[in-house]
C-alpha cells in the first residue's frame, strides 16, 4: 500500500480550561516524510492521539485521502490505514516477536474470529517473517516481548504498526531513551522502511540533528498551535522558531543574529 494524504483541518482539543491543541491545520502529502518538533508540552503527542482516535477532537476534522475519519473509534481508524507506534513501547508482553506480528496481521485482516485454525496460520507466519526481515528483527523471532532490550522493544512497536501495512504511519519519538549510536541506527532503519514502503511517515523527535538530516518537511508546534512549517532549511532560518525552540545552536549561519 502506498502512502495516503493526511489533512488536519482546524483541529482543536481542550482539557478543562487547557487548550492542548489549538486550531491545528496541517497537510501531509502522500508518501512524504515529516517531522513534528516542539518544546515539551507543545501538544505533539496529543496531536497523534487526535489523529489515531485515542482522544476525540473538540472540533476540527481529520481527512485521510479526502475521507473524513474524525471521531471514529481507534480500531476503525487503524482499519482506514493509520498506524501508530508509541513513545513508550506498547507491546503484548507474553507474545514472542513472531507471535506479536502474526497476531497484528491477523487482526488487521479481520481473521481473528476463526476458531478452527491453529495460531498462527502458516501464510500469516510467513508474512510476519517478512516484516521481521524488513525491520531486522528476524534473529529475535522466538524471544518473548518482555525479554527484549529497550531498543528492540521500540523496534517491535514500530513493526507492529508496520505489519498493518498502513498508508500513514505515526511514530512518537522512535529514538526515545536511546544512546546516541543506537539513535542513529534506529532512525536509519526507519528511513529505510520509509524508502521501502513509501507510506506517509510522520514522526515526533527531539534530536534536531536527526530531524534536519532525514525529514523532508518539519512542522513546529508550540502551546498546541502551529508555530512554523516548511523544509528543514526554512524552519532553521525562521526567527520565531529560533527564539522559541532551537536557540542559536541549530540555526543556520547568518540568520541567528
Amino acid at each position, binding site marked *: 500500500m502506498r502512502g495516503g494524504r493526511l489533512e488536519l483541518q482546524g483541529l482543536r482539543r481542550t482539557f478543562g480550561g487547557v487548550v492542548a491543541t489549538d486550531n491545528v491545520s496541517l497537510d501531509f502529502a502522500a508518501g512524504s516524510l515529516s517531522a513534528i518538533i516542539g518544546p515539551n508540552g507543545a501538544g505533539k503527542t496529543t496531536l497523534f492521539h487526535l489523529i*489515531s482516535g*485515542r482522544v476525540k477532537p473538540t472540533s476540527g476534522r481529520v481527512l485521510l485521502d479526502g475521507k473524513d475519519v474524525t471521531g471514529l*473509534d*481507534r*480500531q476503525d481508524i*487503524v*482499519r482506514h490505514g493509520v*498506524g*501508530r507506534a508509541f513513545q513508550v513501547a*506498547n*507491546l*503484548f*508482553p*507474553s*507474545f514472542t516477536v513472531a*507471535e506479536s506480528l*502474526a*497476531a*497484528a496481521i*491477523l*487482526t*488487521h485482516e*479481520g*481473521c*481473528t*474470529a*476463526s*476458531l*478452527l*485454525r*491453529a*495460531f*498462527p*496460520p*502458516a501464510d500469516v507466519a510467513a508474512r510476519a517473517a517478512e516484516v521481521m526481515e524488513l525491520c531486522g528483527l528476524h534473529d529475535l523471532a522466538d524471544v518473548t516481548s518482555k525479554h527484549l532490550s529497550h531498543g528492540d522493544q521500540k523496534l517491535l512497536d514500530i513493526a*507492529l*504498526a508496520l*505489519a*498493518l501495512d498502513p498508508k500513514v504511519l505515526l511514530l512518537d519519538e522512535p529514538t526515545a531513551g536511546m544512546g546516541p549510536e543506537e539513535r542513529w541506527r534506529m532512525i536509519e532503519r526507519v528511513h529505510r522502511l520509509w524508502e521501502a514502503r513509501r507510506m506517509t511517515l510522520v514522526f515526533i523527535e527531539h534530536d534536531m540533528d536527526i530531524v534536519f538530516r532525514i525529514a523532508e518537511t518539519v512542522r513546529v508546534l508550540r502551546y498546541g498551535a502551529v508555530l512554523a512549517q516548511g523544509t528543514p532549511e526554512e524552519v532553521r532560518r525562521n526567527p520565531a522558531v529560533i527564539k522559541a525552540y532551537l536557540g542559536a545552536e541549530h540555526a543556520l549561519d547568518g540568520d541567528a543574529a
Partner: protein
Amino acid sequence: MRTALSWRGDVLVAALAFVALAVPAFALGVSSVHDFAVRFAIFGLLAMSLNLLIGTTGLVSFGHAAFFGSGAYAFGLLMQSGGWSVPAAILAAMAFTAVLALAIGTLCVRLSEIYFAFLTLAFQMLIHSLVISWVSLTGGDQGLMGGVPKPPFLGIDLGDARHLAMFSAFCLLVSVVALRQIVRSPFGAALRMLRDNPERAAFVGLSIFRYRLAAFVIAGTFAGLAGVLMSLYVSGAFPTFLYWTTSGEAIFMIMLGGITVFLGPLVGTAIFLVLNDRITNITEHHGLVMGSILLVLVLGLRKGLLDFVVDAWRERQEKRT
C-alpha cells in the same frame, strides 16, 4: 495440516483418558469413586470455563456461578415440565445461559478490572435474589424440589451412578478439547492480546468489546453445561449454586492449580475437592483450614501449583542449555 493434527492429537488424548477412566469405574463399581468423578467433572468444567476469562482474556469475573446456577435451574425446570429429552434439554439450557451471558456481558465487558468484577458480582446477586423470591417457579430458598426426571436416551440411563459418572467425564473431556482449540486458535490469540494489552490490541484494529463479549458468552455457556451436570447429580437445583461463594470456590480452584497453564484449573479442582472432603471429615472449621492453605499459596508461591511446577521445570531446562 498442523491444525488437523493438533485437533486429532487432543481428541486422541481425550479418548484415551475416557477409556482409562471408564474401565476402572465400571470394574470397581465403588460409589464414592463415581461421586468424585461427577463432582470433578462439574467443578473442573466450571473452573476451566472461568479460566477462559481470567487466564486467557484477563477478565476477573466474580459472578461466574450465575451461569452455573442458571444452567442447573433451566435444565431442571425443562425436565420437570416433561416432554423434553435429556440431550435436547441440555442444549436448551446451554442456549439459555448463552443468551443470559450475552445480556449480562454486554453491560459488563465495557468496564475494566475492578468495575467489571463488581458488576459481575452485582448481577449474580441480582439473579440469586430473583431465584429466591420467585417461589412459584424456582421453589425459593428450598430449591427445585421433587427431583429431576432422567429418561434414558441412546442406552444411557443417567439415573445410574456409573452412567452419570461416565457421561460427566465425557462432557468434561469434550469441553476441554473444545476450550483448548479455542485458546490456541486465532480467536484465542486475540483474547490473549486483550489480556496482555487491550489498548495496543485496539491500535492494531481489534474490537475490545466484541472479543471480550464473545469470551464472556463462551465461558458462560460452558459454565451452564457444568450447571446441567450439577442438576443431574443432585437431582434438583439450589440457590447456593448461584451464590457468590460458588464463584469464589471456582476462583479458588483456579488459583490453586494455576492460571497460565491450560490444565491448571483441573489440577486445582482435584486438589480442592480432595482437601475439602478430607478436611470436612476432620473438623467443622474447614473454612479456616482452606483459607490458610490459600494464604500460604498466595504469599508463598505467588502462583498456582501447576504454574510453579512448569516455571521451575522451564528454569531447569534453560540452565541445562
